[in-house]
């Protein structure tokens, strides 16, 4: 076991890890940050998406040791400082962009990364950007609306019925 240190949601943290410890297990088991979910464990579903140095990655397919020293952001770091929902989270609530909520942490993190690169995406760009995130409940329609709304666009006017 090695002590692995990185910055998570703005705080310097460390926990023991083996070579094979995945970033998602380091976050959940090592740090107790269980907001990041493990869905498929095969990098298909995107429930485990977190940001590493500002880029969305699938935490089930990255070794913790490989991102030692990195700036990591998880769903726990997405709320506002006063504890209220962040912009993307609020949009998902407003537009009912979730049902069971299992995929939502990954959806929110992927959305935040998408909007950081492309602040006003088209509906097609949103759907392309969410290609690596699977939701088995909503059929994506309300998720796409939520992303468009989070970008400040009129989701109802844009998103296909």
């Amino acid at each position: 076991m090695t002590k692995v240190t990185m910055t998570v949601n703005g705080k310097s943290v460390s926990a023991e890890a083996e070579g094979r410890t995945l970033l998602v297990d380091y976050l959940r088991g090592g740090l107790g940050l269980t907001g990041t979910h493990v869905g498929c464990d095969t990098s298909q579903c995107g429930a485990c998406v977190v940001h590493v140095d500002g880029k969305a990655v699938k935490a089930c397919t990255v070794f913790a040791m490989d991102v030692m020293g990195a700036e990591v952001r998880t769903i726990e770091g997405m709320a506002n400082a006063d504890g209220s929902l962040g912009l993307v989270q609020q949009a998902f609530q407003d537009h009912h962009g979730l049902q069971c909520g299992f995929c939502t942490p990954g959806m929110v993190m992927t959305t935040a990364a998408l909007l950081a690169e492309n602040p006003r995406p088209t509906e097609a760009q949103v759907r392309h950007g969410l290609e690596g995130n699977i939701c088995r409940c909503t059929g994506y329609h309300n998720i796409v609306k939520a992303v468009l709304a989070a970008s400040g666009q009129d989701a109802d006017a844009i998103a296909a019925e």
Partner: protein
Amino acid sequence: MHNFEFVKPATIADAVAALAAEGAQPLSGGQTLLPTMKQRLAAPEVLVSLTGIAEMQGVCMGEGGLHIGAATPHAVVAAEAAAHYPALAALAGGIGDPAVRNRGTIGGSVANNDPAACYPAAVLASGATVVTNTRRIAAEDYFQGMFTTALEEGEFITQVIFPIPQRGAYVKFNQPASRFALTAVFVAQFADGVRVAATGASNNGVFRWEEAEEALSAEFSAGAIAGLTVSSDDMISDLHGSAAYRANLVKVLTGRAVTAAR
């Protein structure tokens, strides 16, 4: 997954030394290797991460064309190659999904040589040079069949150099679940002729369709290949598509790539 010793060198020289250890294997973005290790299809004793090596990162113009560091993620190639080689940038931007593109690297893809991977088609169609820690390998000599390459034990890719064609395009018929190519074709037109490479189709991995190259070198239009057929011998046949279907896709996608080339 079996445990291993994790090493992350900062220079190519240190990576060479680390890979000399018994049971050592290089790790790039890990988007294929990690799933493979989870299934215990690979169980290295030492894993040497190549993504911390600055001299293996980045995209720049240089002698012989566009130089891409082997540890450069697909998303960076998609952004930074766009001004120099748009067809290659578009290919990189269509691999996997955004999160996979932020981790997966060109060197990892070319080293793995998955028969349905995108990059091998670009490397072969461009006549690219695969640069390793010990030598330079021409694309023709590099790919040696499904998951098989000219790389030797302890050897790893440091850079890929792409000559830039006058026109080119990559057209991929997506396998929607895996986002690999069900079949895809890269067409590149150079001053001295056209090169056509197909991936996702053959049991022997990426290959050049030489008949089409000849026809397209004489006349660069989709119509020029209308009379040709692709043999379905040795084509991949699985639940996603039969050998005959893939053979036909090679022709159809070649035509589309010619039309799309710019």
